[in-house]
């Protein structure tokens, strides 16, 4: 093929071409020079640390953010959407991490929201919509989601899949998936992979945004790396090594996180639970965690694993069982955050945005919120002392913020999470319960958080890590407990398991494929 012919071929294949896009917000350049070229039938990974400009770029593509300069072409035509509606009409769909479903409406109503099937006189054709919704869910492989169920009765992962289904109502020409597997379990992830493969066959473009690098090799064809609002590199996925991607994203080499040293594990039990039952998931869990030990808890969505931390911290009802924290027995009604926080237990919620940070308040106030008693006498605050302490932790945990007076919502996810770690560490707890400690956190911050977790254990604290990220559990824990159907299905000591064995233990069987 002559050079010009190949070029034409390439241009025809290209469905989205973004070049030289710049966007400044007051005080911040979110995009300095962004480029992105997505071809038809391609799964295109967009990676970069938090704050690299991925979300702003997505905002520009879907019409929510107006760029200052730059050119975009979509399906061979100039494309400058002034609103999300315009982008929608062009055939672009975005599925965000943060869900936009209306909780008290049914799955069907949500799928058709704003695009109701209506007959004469505008009456809604409920029955037709229900049938269409059921067929759609079946086609997509989401048959386990009842179309008539209210959305607030669904699990987080099911809600996410409904969100995906909503985008699939008419086949999109380009679909953008933001951290698509964050909320999904192994089985659901494989269903989503199948769906993406079929979109690819049908010639749609897919932009896949993720922090989980192992996914790139499973599903994506091309990788575009962004850093500090700029385009860095775009190459076929197969030609890039994992370490190379990390180097491009961070601009530095990040060593693999060290495994924790078991030499620091003490003999004293910081947490003992026996026969723990909770309203919903747990049906007789028994386990113990010692000082200096990092214990991981993993399992499928619905296995009860997501209730352990909440139950221990008094946020989810305990129906039966005994709990001993820091050597003292606790009745379920004594498990209250205010009390537990004072007694040296720190809980890091899995949902950072809605349960962790106080978004409008400054970094400093977020950091010291749990340790105000220690900051002065009789509740009066020693603010100079506070400023020094916060500055100390900002430096120690490498929190990247212009100042500690910055509202925390302006920080990236990784930096917000570090501030929450500082909040915990300031109370000098003896037991840390960490839920999804690195969800939505960039690679650099992830390594920092793992290092801090190891330090905490080495300093004598007991740490529980509850995570859907199997790689994470295998990296940071001395011991991993796999939860299946509300009970411990298997226990692995450090180095004993690989990802496959762990996942198979989640299914409670020897072979994970059988269970899928």
């Amino acid at each position: 093929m002559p050079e010009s012919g190949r070029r034409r071929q390439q241009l025809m294949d290209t469905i989205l071409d973004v070049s030289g896009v710049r966007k400044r917000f007051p005080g911040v350049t979110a995009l300095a020079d962004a480029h992105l070229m997505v071809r038809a039938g391609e799964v295109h990974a967009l990676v970069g640390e938090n704050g690299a400009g991925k979300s702003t770029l997505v905002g520009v593509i879907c019409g929510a953010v107006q760029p200052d300069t730059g050119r975009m072409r979509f399906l061979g035509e100039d494309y400058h959407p002034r609103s999300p509606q315009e982008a929608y009409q062009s055939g672009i769909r975005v599925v965000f991490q943060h869900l936009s479903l209306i909780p008290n409406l049914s799955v069907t109503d949500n799928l058709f929201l704003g695009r109701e099937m209506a007959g004469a006189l505008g009456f809604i054709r409920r029955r037709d919509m229900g049938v269409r919704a059921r067929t759609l869910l079946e086609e997509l492989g989401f048959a386990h989601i009842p179309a008539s169920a209210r959305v607030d009765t669904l699990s987080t992962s099911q809600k996410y899949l409904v969100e995906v289904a909503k985008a699939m109502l008419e086949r999109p020409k380009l679909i953008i998936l933001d951290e698509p597997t964050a909320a999904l379990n192994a089985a659901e992830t494989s269903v989503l992979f199948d769906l993406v493969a079929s979109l690819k066959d049908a010639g749609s473009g897919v932009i896949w945004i993720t922090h989980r690098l192992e996914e790139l090799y499973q599903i994506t064809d091309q990788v575009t790396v962004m850093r500090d609002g700029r385009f860095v590199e775009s190459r076929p996925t197969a030609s890039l090594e994992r370490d190379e991607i990390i180097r491009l994203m961070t601009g530095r080499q990040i060593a693999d996180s060290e495994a924790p040293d078991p030499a620091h594990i003490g003999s004293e039990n910081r947490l003992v639970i026996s026969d723990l039952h909770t309203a919903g998931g747990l049906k007789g869990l028994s386990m113990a965690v010692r000082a200096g030990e990092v214990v991981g808890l993993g399992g499928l969505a619905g296995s009860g694993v997501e209730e352990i931390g909440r139950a221990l911290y008094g946020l989810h009802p305990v129906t039966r069982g005994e709990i001993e924290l820091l050597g003292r027995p606790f009745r379920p009604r004594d498990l209250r955050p205010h009390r537990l926080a004072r007694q040296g237990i720190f809980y890091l919620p899995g949902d950072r945005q809605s349960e962790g940070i106080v978004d409008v308040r400054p970094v400093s106030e977020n950091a010291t919120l749990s340790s105000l008693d220690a900051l002065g006498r009789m509740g009066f605050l020693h603010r100079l002392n506070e400023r020094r302490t916060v500055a100390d932790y900002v430096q120690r945990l490498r929190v990247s913020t212009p100042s500690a007076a910055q509202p925390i919502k302006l920080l990236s996810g990784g930096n917000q999470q570090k501030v929450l770690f500082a909040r915990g560490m300031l109370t000098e707890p003896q037991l840390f319960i960490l839920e999804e400690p690195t969800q939505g956190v960039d690679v650099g911050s992830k390594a920092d958080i793992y290092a801090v977790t190891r330090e905490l254990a080495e300093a004598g604290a007991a740490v529980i890590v509850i995570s859907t990220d199997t790689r994470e559990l295998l990296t940071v824990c001395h011991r991993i407990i796999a939860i299946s159907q509300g009970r411990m299905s298997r226990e692995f000591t450090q180095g004993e398991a690989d990802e496959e064995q762990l996942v198979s233990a989640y299914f409670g069987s020897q072979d994970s494929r059988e269970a899928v």
Partner: protein
Amino acid sequence: MNTMAETRGRETGDGGGNAVLDAARIIFTKTGALLPLFVIMAIYFSVASEHFLSGRNMSTIATQSVYFTLVVIAQAIVMITGGFDLSVGAALALTSITTSSVIVAVPGAGGIVLATGAGMLTGASVGAANGLLISQFRVSPLIVTLGMASVVSGLALIITGGVPIFNLPQLFKETLYTGDLAGVPVPWLVVLLVVGIAYIALYWHRLGRNWYAVGGNPVSAHIAGVPVKRALFLAYLSAGVLVGIAGVMLTARVGSGEPNLGGTFALQSIAAAVLGGISLRGGQGSLWGAILGAIFLVLLQNGLDLVGVSSYLQMIITGALLVFAVIVDHYWHKG
């Protein structure tokens, strides 16, 4: 992933170390809508009325501001926790009634002390009732304080039969209204003291931090170990005490126990707080902003009175300003 649309340059009114610097910073950043309004209004009224800028009028404004500022600070505290208090006007009236009743019953200086105590206790009781219902039973502040306003107004009318309590001793007025200490009028001293205590509570004490945190995100605050219920209760209780103080002071000024005192205070205090940058969504805004908002509304009413605008038209203006302030607040705190 954080949305970059939130990356708008702005400051939070969190106090800071230096009160003067803080106030300056907040005037220029936080009360963005208020400053131009202030200037326009001051220019207009000083042109329209020769009396507006006179020393005598300024002194009147300062004294008038006292009562309203006390109520606005009360309102600001509960708004910072994410609520609001529609019962401030009614509580003011009931306070006025109990204060007058006690003072009529007990003659002499002892009566004044007792009456002041009774007035503050009345305000505190209303605040405690609000706080208890809102924190323990999780009823929305709108319903609780709206209902409370009706209950408290009814109580005031039952006690008095709708007739004001007259014949308060002159000493009462001479102490709390026209009295002075080293040349500074007593009302000014009271408001300075209250502002000082509120400043310490909000920015140099755990309590204020807890209020801001609860207003910013009650779930996060709860998980971080903040005693959310206690913080909410104390916010409404403090507001009640402040309203009680305002009620006692106002009774001394009008010289009678009025069952209809403070009728428009609820709406006006919310308008002033929002104009001063206290967000209706909670967790944002500063004491200084709220005080500026209060002074602004008092100046506005004074000016409108001077140029002869009827009180009916003034009601329309206040209402429109509140809605305008909420819209500004919405854009200011967007995200």
